[in-house]
């Protein structure tokens, strides 16, 4: 290379180096800070502006707005929409509780003697033996009783001897003695038959037979042969199980919904499929401190003795709540604090309704507000319908019918009046700027001019993909001969939902929804 070249290139190199250095200096140079004697904080918290927008109260996150939607039969079928009705119904409330079978205290008897003595023979000699009323249980020898009997016999004899005595008071005294002795025997609860036997035979009965006072099961037996019995000794307890008690433990929260005489069904694991019906006999006036439950006592007749004391049972209380407006529980979508039902108004029109609900009863739920009897409600795929409604609300695509016109009547006639022919340039549209052409004609083919035509493109958000919802609105300006033209920018390729609205002097002439797939990638 010759000198010239070297020189020129050096000059150029120097210039470039200067330029690059200048650039870097500008980019890197720190902003000059005025020197200060105070220690400067590295960062300063924001100073609240005096007129800060106070929107804290106003902008509590609101529930997503919903709009009515119209679905074609095919789309309804594709998600399997089913309906149920709102109706008045007699409803019962269920409270489930556990309980145990107990002996009906009213049907429990003890066997005791009122005198002391010795048990001689025991007939009812096993616990849980069944005895009938009047069946002999045991015999008892009571010296006391024998003495009393002898006394009685003596008194009788004396009475017989002295009955003819003329001495004043003797006959009556003897009679009184007899009566007193007999009364003693009676007070000892000696059966009349035994007293008669003593009377007839003139001999005391040494082994008195004690019969069962009631029919039932011996639940307790202390009578053993040769047992010395005192009046305090409890020899037998006999329970009649033909009617039993079920003591249900109901949690205190539920007790208020029960009242005596309510029906209750009892089931026992031992007899699957069998229920025992009964009624609430009483609600006990005490909460069990240990279990925090209130006892509820049922009386259940138990003719075949299947319910055995001590059994665990499940009790199902039914309380009558009267005639209430109910809907199938599956018709309600719990959307946070809001409860929604979708009313099927026919023709694929589904309207969301906020409802206020009462308690759920079985598969149904009581409606307090928001619905009326006879309305048809969507009972399946509610979630999807709710979503669609939210999407349409976000798209702003739903056009309420003009006031005064019923939905069913106006919808088809409107679309029949106006033919909308929509094309895009390029076709299909692409990401970026597009031109939209629209041709409006009446049903006779006559072009319609001077209408306000707007086209809204909408794409819902896909949070999982980090994609926001997008809308583009284009107002088309009227050309001649029913032609309208306008431009709009689509932010991305992909499926767009397009809503075309045609208005003339404030009146909605027609709306049309369609879908286009824009090219150009996300």
């Amino acid at each position, binding site marked *: 290379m010759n000198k010239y070249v070297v020189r020129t290139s050096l000059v150029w190199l120097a210039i470039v180096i200067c330029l690059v250095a200048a650039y870097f200096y500008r980019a890197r140079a720190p902003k000059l800070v005025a020197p200060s004697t105070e220690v400067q904080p590295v960062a300063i918290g924001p100073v609240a502006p005096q007129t800060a927008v106070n929107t804290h109260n106003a902008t509590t996150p609101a529930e997503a707005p919903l709009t009515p939607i119209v679905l074609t039969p095919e789309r309804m079928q594709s998600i399997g929409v089913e309906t149920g009705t709102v109706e008045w119904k007699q409803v019962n409330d269920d409270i489930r509780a556990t309980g145990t079978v107990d002996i009906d205290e009213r049907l429990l008897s003890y066997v005791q003697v009122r005198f002391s003595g010795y048990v001689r023979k025991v007939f009812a000699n096993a616990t849980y033996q069944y005895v009938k009323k009047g069946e002999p249980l045991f015999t008892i020898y009571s010296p006391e009783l024998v003495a009393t009997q002898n006394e009685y016999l003596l008194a009788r004899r004396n009475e017989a001897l002295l009955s003819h005595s003329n001495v004043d008071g003797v006959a009556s005294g003897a009679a009184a003695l007899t009566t007193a002795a007999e009364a003693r025997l009676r007070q000892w609860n000696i059966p009349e038959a035994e007293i008669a036997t003593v009377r007839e035979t003139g001999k005391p009965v040494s082994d008195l037979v004690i019969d069962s006072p009631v029919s039932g099961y011996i639940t307790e037996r202390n009578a053993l042969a040769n047992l010395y019995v005192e009046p305090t000794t409890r020899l037998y307890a006999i329970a009649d199980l033909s009617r039993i008690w079920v003591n249900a433990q109901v949690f205190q929260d539920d007790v208020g919904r029960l009242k005596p005489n309510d029906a209750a069904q009892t089931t026992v694991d031992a007899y699957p499929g069998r229920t025992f019906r009964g009624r609430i006999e009483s609600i006990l006036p005490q909460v069990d401190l240990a279990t925090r439950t209130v006892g509820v006592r049922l009386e259940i007749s138990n003719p075949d003795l299947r319910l055995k004391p001590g059994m665990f049972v499940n009790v199902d209380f039914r309380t009558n709540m009267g005639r209430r407006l109910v809907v199938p529980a599956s018709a309600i979508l719990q959307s*946070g604090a809001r409860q929604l039902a979708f009313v099927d108004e026919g023709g694929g029109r589904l309207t969301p309704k906020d409802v206020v609900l009462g308690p759920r009863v079985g598969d149904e739920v009581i409606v307090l507000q928001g619905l009326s009897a006879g309305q048809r409600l969507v009972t399946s795929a509610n*979630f999807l319908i709710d979503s669609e409604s939210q999407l349409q609300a976000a798209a702003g695509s739903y056009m309420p019918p003009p006031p005064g016109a019923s939905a069913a009547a106006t919808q088809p006639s409107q679309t029949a009046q106006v033919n909308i022919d929509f094309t895009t340039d390029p076709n299909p549209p692409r990401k970026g700027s597009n031109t939209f052409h629209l041709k409006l004609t009446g049903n006779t083919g006559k072009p319609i001019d001077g209408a306000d035509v707007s086209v809204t493109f909408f794409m819902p958000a896909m949070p999982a993909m980090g994609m926001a919802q997008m809308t583009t609105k284009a107002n088309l300006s009227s050309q001649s001969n029913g032609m309208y033209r306008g431009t709009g920018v689509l932010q991305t390729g992909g499926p767009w939902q397009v809503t075309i609205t045609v208005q003339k002097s404030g009146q909605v002439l027609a709306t049309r929804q369609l879908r286009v797939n824009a090219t150009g990638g996300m």
Partner: protein
Amino acid sequence: MLSRLIEACARNRFLVFTGVLLLTLAGIWSLNHLPLDALPDISDVQVIVHTAWNGEPPDVIEDQVTYPIVTSLLAAPRVKAVRAQTMFGDSYVFVIFEDRTDLYWARSRVIEYLQQIGGRLPENVHPSIGPDATGAGWVYEYAIVDKSHKHSLADLRSLQDWHLRYALETVPGVAEVASIGGFVRQYQVQLDPNKLLAYHIPLSTVIDRVKASTNEVGGRLLDLNGARYMIRGLGYLHSLNDLANVAVGSNNGTPVLLRNLGIVNFGPDIREGAAEWNGEGETVGGIVVMRDGQNALNVIEAVKQKLRDIAPSLPSGVEIMSGYDRSGLIRDSISTLQRDLLEEAAIVSLVIIVFLLHFRSALIAIVTLPIAVLISFIPMHLLGVSSNIMSLGGLALAVGVLVDAAIVMVENGYRRLSEYQEQHSGPVANDIRFQILIDAAKQVGPALFFSLLIVVVSFLPVFLLEAQEGRMFRPLAWTKTLAVASSSILAITLVPVLMTLLIRGRLRPERANPVSRFTQALYLPVLRFCLHHRVLAIVVNLVFLVVTLPLALRLGSQFMPPLFEGSALYMPTALPGIAIGQATALLGEQDRILRSFPEVESVFGSVGRSDSATDNAPLDMYDTIVMLKPRESWPPGMTYEKLTQNMDAKLQFPGLSNTWTMPVENRLDMELTGIKTPLGIKVQGPNLEGIERAASEIQAVLSDLPQVRSIFAERVAQGFYIDVEPDRAEAARYGLTIEDVQRAVTSGIGGQNIAENIEGRERYPISVRYERHFRDAPQRMLDVLIATPSEAQIPLGQVARVNFSRGPSMIRDEDGALTGYIYLDLKDANYGGFVAQATRQLQARLHLPAGYTFQWSGEYEFELRAKQRLKLILPIVFFVIFLLLYMVFHSVAEALVLIFPTIYALTGGLLLQYLLGYNFSVAVWVGYIALFGIAIETGVVMLVYLNEALDRRTQGGHSLSKADLEAAVMEGAVQRLRPKLMTVTAVLASLAPILWATGIGSDVMKPIAAPIVGGMITSTIHVLILVPIFFMMMKERMIKTPMNEENP
């Protein structure tokens, strides 16, 4: 120096041949060892920390798991960002490292930092790092189909989980095999609370007893009679009956068994995903995830081979169907590009033969081409660049340029020799021929070498692309650069050698070449006219420039041109909160509809997520792969767009919004976390309600600004919740703690997997909870019993309230702060100005509570950064080009003249791009960048010849007249038309196959090729007409002011 190298090479043929042969062999070896894939993996270097916490809602997991993990990882070295998503039952933390961090180094850092927080996480929660793969590694998916309908979904899932999965994970290159769909079998103990009450057994006792009921232990050894006996304590459950007979307590000596307290059966674990096959019913699917940087094609083949090997061991009636197979795409796209390359080579060879009409000379260029390509594979292999559409595309783009140097040199030598032959009739002495050829090579060699260097340098900005587009186009830039570099080296080493060997014998002079005569006859009058009407010519050109440039404004823009992958991905999304039953029902319906299209080969539908850490899809997201039949078998007139349009029309489900994409594209998209609109705002703060409030305030403030087209603050509370809220006072009354109440929620209502039963190779969880009937409605939940310290059992309803509410279905956590997104769309593209203005507005009108911050985000960040870089880099690149040009021509003016063709190249590129309807995309820009280099290169060739012609005139030493100048220009331009046309035609012809190719993979290359083709046409016109005009004007001025005698 270069001249000496050329001479040295030509004199050492043997060494050159040996060197080239060795390099070629090394190139072939490298080619065979390059990993193959369809597209480069454009995901960040990231490590996913996945934590499963069964059955917990997002906010609980966020507070107790995600937040500790995120905060601990923030300080890890080289970490660029930590983003997290928390969903029901799962937490995903994405740790994104700086570019070019080694993945395995990054993974060990993550493990290191995770270790620090082990103790801060809840019990039984164990974070694990995801596979060394990304979502782009989903190369193969299969469905397990039971044709006999004898096996339950739980059986199939067991087959997948315990048999197929491990077998396939042994295949080299497979990072993970994930399962989706079916039921995970679970031992379920379903308790009747009434019975617990009746037997006075609290739930906790049952849980303890069940936990203690399955284990086996060893009891060391016993020596007996000289033998050694190993002692073991048996105790695994062998059947449901074993579990049912576990004693949980005793009642007066009578044991209370589990079966007395409820039902013991098999049931499904919580499902977070479902799979479906062809609309025929639910199935179980497997996803083969390939390890990072592996050869996808080999992995898929090995997986398929393994599946064939396993087939005989499958239960009868069970078949494994391929649901998604990327190998077809890879093979098709690679073969498309290979075909393109071959076609290009053939066409280029043809062009050379036609122009030279001398086969042996043509052979020089034809031989150098493949050698240059092969040699470029060596550094590719060393750099770990995989062979994919992009890297092969780089080669395809380079082919035309690769032969340029050889063409020009050969042409020059050929012409010189033929001229000599003409002057000295008779055979040429070998040494004279040799010298003539070497001189010819030396004459153009340095200029060619530099012009190729310019091509390389001008392409450097592509390497500056960052993030996704950088990763996407870097392979292309590498291969193109490497190939051009190797060809420029070959041009000064191998080509001179070959010239001396092959250009011999009787050569036909250029005048005798009909092609040259024809083109010259066409060009000469035009050039003469233009030289005489220079102003007119320049004005016409300027007008053309002015007319075409506005076209640029009419074109849209996009990230990447779509690649037709031979399969479609139908991806509808529902709103958050859909239940699995509803989702599955829709899935079947969708698949049936899709299957009914005759173009569809198979449909593999799935919803929700698999158990892979690379899959963070929520349950509201479908992911249905539709494998399409080859395009040839489609009905005539059917296109992919039309097909998806038709499918979309049939798949209108209320409440779902459809998305159509393609599997690879989608996986790449899913990798890119964060805001995807150009502009967005991240609102960060300590709680979600506050964020939502702040976001809606920002929305209110910004929506007033005129530039805003739309603004949308993401709603955080999208999920449905049932809150069980303990009443502390009531609970205290019964002596209960909050934990006691919550245990009833987790165990009674939720049910926990409290133990695992080992059954041979398989392991199944055991869960305990209340019978369905006792927890399937909020009212019934109130009846869940809690054991109090006084041994009483009270219902939950007495100490807690149950409410419905809305809450987050997915929680974002970025760098340790809860985050909400606001998406913005602007009417103009001045993002920087808008951000400044909006920030002022927000500062003035917004008062965020302490702890809340907002920051701007979105793709505009990249754009800003890229702009910053370009501001710095572009001037440097232009200056380097300029310097290189200057080194060739030693003239500032000439170097400047040569920069002009780029602008004219732009106009032609725009025109063709507009005609073909391609949007602006990074791909198109890459095409333009490539174009600039080539345009300059052709200009260089022109100037070389003009200068050469001028030199001849000035050799005599006499001064130039204007007529001399014109004659020189005419000679340089017209007589040397052939080499210029040859290079241009080679470039154009080589790109033609890309433009007309229809195979899979061609869609991506077309937008890159289009601007080059269009630009080459206009820049050729410019080079042929304007460069001579400028040259002449320049030289004329020099004649008038002859101060630079030194200037040649």
